[in-house]
């Protein structure tokens, strides 16, 4: 197929179009992704996550500049939220990355969440495959601005960077499950602001309260600040890039990379199964009007949702 060939040669137009087809759930997209699949799996995938306004896009912009010094071919997927009311979205991450827009070695594609809840878009898995097939050596994924729990990024990235900023709560926040557990590298961004040292201390104390075994990875903390002092900022970004590289090396040498790829693959199969089983069933139920009448019955307490689901499962899964 022409599209496949073009994407494998790095053609931006074809790549972005295929990602669009996946987002819009166009049936022909699946066949194309299948054809691309053998060309995927060679990129190093870095996830960048953190609260809204933490500085994720700006960090990515600076990381791109650092990685381009090493001539790495880079793909970026930047996710921003879709309105639950209108279905519209403002995709504004790339404003911060516009200085790279004419660099042929950098491809930035914005994705809207379109209802996905884990901090990413449902199309992100396939979009990664498209970038991999394009030959992108490094793929940076920016999640939506997240809270404590939206951690789907761990199912897609090899290394996860959690971006924190000072002033977001006391020590107990650093002890909680979820976001604080998934970091391979912590960034304390806007570290020139008040409270950064305290956050650093709290983070250290959290990490030391349950220290990793010596052979395991201990998430480093990189303090990044002074965004308006280009040289100082660039030094910090170089340090961050080095830590990410170290983590990559650790993953490769420790066998953890294989474990992560295993998890990633399992999730991918899980998602594909769900799409192949759940979606056709939901479609049929919707078409026949059965879904609507089921909602009515459950709403009126004539039947409980569990029995209704069991009855449908019996009918469709033999």
């Amino acid at each position, binding site marked *: 197929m022409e599209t496949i060939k073009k994407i494998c040669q790095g053609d931006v*137009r074809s790549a*972005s179009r295929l990602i669009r087809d996946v987002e*819009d759930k166009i049936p022909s997209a699946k066949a194309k992704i299948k054809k691309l699949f053998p060309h995927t799996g060679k990129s190093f995938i870095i996830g960048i996550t953190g609260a809204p306004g933490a500085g994720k896009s700006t960090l990515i912009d600076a990381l791109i500049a650092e990685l381009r010094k090493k001539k790495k071919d880079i793909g970026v997927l930047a996710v921003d939220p879709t309105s639950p009311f209108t279905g519209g979205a403002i995709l504004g991450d790339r404003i911060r990355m*516009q200085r790279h*827009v*004419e660099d042929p070695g950098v491809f930035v594609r*914005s994705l809207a969440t379109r209802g996905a809840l884990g901090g990413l878009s449902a199309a992100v898995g396939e979009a990664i495959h498209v970038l991999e097939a394009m030959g992108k050596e490094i793929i940076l994924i920016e999640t939506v601005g997240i809270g404590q729990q939206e951690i789907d990024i761990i199912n897609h990235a090899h290394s996860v960077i959690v971006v924190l900023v000072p002033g977001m709560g006391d020590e107990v926040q650093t002890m909680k499950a979820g976001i604080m557990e998934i970091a391979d590298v912590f960034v304390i961004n806007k570290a020139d602001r008040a409270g950064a040292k305290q956050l650093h201390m709290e983070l250290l104390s959290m990490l030391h309260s349950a220290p990793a075994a010596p052979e395991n990875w201990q998430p480093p903390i990189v303090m990044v600040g002074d965004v308006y002092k280009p040289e100082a900022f660039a030094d910090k970004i170089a340090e961050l890039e080095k830590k990410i590289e170290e983590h990559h090396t650790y993953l490769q040498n420790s066998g953890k990379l294989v474990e992560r790829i295993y998890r990633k693959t399992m999730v991918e199969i899980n998602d594909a199964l769900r799409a192949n089983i759940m979606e056709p069933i939901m479609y049929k139920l919707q078409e026949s009007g059965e879904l609507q009448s089921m909602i009515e019955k459950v709403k009126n307490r004539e039947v409980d949702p569990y029995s209704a689901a069991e009855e449908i499962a019996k009918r469709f899964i033999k």
Partner: protein
Amino acid sequence: MTKRKIRVMVAKPGLDGHDRGARVLARCFRDAGFEVIYTGCHQTPEQIVSAAIQEDVDLVGLSCLSGAHRALFPRVVELLHEKDAGDINVIGGGIIPEQDFQLLYDSGIKAIFTPGASLDSIVEWINTNIKPRA
């Protein structure tokens, strides 16, 4: 099957930092259910075209209040054609004197909206004229 979602880029070419209008439009397009890519001020036509292709948009909306529209708007259309992306539509808005309309239409700008155009009329134009490719 979901319906195709319209993707629009709102861009400000040239040395013009007055982006209030562009921001209002971006917000309005969001509320109309479009996915809006906003790239900020001071963009060259080359940057705008490169971003439009990377984002696979259906439409580029250019906003210019500096008077440079006669040079910048046609250049965006020209570059899109050069990059084999002539199917991406371009509309324009801002402070544009009526006597320039024909020149812009001739260069391939599909519609022009000047101060006073209602947001609804712009959204309606898009919904009527922009069909995301099949």
